[in-house]
């Protein structure tokens, strides 16, 4: 309660402002919203993936075209971004399934699992980056 009312003498049963905007999001909430954000990002990314899939399977020329595009640094950056979203969404999704099964739902284990998701994703995203370049 960061805003103690100075006017308590007037009325002591007035609603108390707990300062909702000042609450920090718990790490599990950050993991959850990131899962959603990567999901929306992947919706756009799937457009690129579908282009790559259909062009590369179309003909030898199409296959070469996709390979050529992927030699450009910016295309590699996009590919890395897409792969990163997949890595995070994948790992956070597994946490989701584990939580469905009743694990990582307590005040102690919940934040722990969220930290695990961030740590594993960071490693995965780094490795994918090394692989692409």
């Amino acid at each position: 309660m960061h805003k103690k009312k100075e006017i308590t003498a007037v009325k002591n049963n007035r609603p108390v402002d707990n300062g909702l905007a000042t609450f920090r999001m718990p790490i599990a909430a950050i993991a959850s919203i990131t899962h959603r954000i990567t999901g929306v990002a992947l919706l756009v990314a799937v457009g690129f993936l579908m282009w790559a899939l259909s062009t590369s399977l179309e003909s030898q020329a199409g296959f070469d075209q996709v390979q050529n595009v992927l030699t450009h640094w910016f295309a590699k950056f996009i590919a890395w971004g897409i792969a990163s979203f997949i890595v995070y969404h994948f790992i956070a999704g597994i946490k989701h399934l584990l939580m469905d099964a009743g694990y990582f739902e307590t005040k102690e284990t919940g934040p722990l699992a969220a930290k695990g998701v961030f740590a594993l994703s960071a490693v995965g995203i780094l490795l994918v980056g090394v692989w692409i370049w």
Partner: protein
Amino acid sequence: MVRSITSMSRSGLMDWLVQRVSAVVLASYALFMFGYLLFNADLTYEQWSGLFSGLVFKIYTLAMLLALAGHIWVGMWTIATDYLKPTGIRFVFLSVIALANFSYFVIGVTAVWGV
């Protein structure tokens, strides 16, 4: 009883299951693709089209595309109903999603159909 008509199966429980079953299909496909591309660094067109010409992998890919369409719809529906409160805006948003989703599905099916 008020029921949502835009949720995929018009049942929250069914949507919940669709999201999880499709997730497992997508996860396994993603894992396979990461592995395949990792171990075939100098991939040729013959190899690549050969992979998709097999019936089993074709079925797997079509299952993945179906799972993707379901997963996208349930996920986007959940997000739209959580964050977009005005009905008109949500309707337009979900219409765009549906169009993109269906287009992805058609592009994906067309890509593997003739291979």
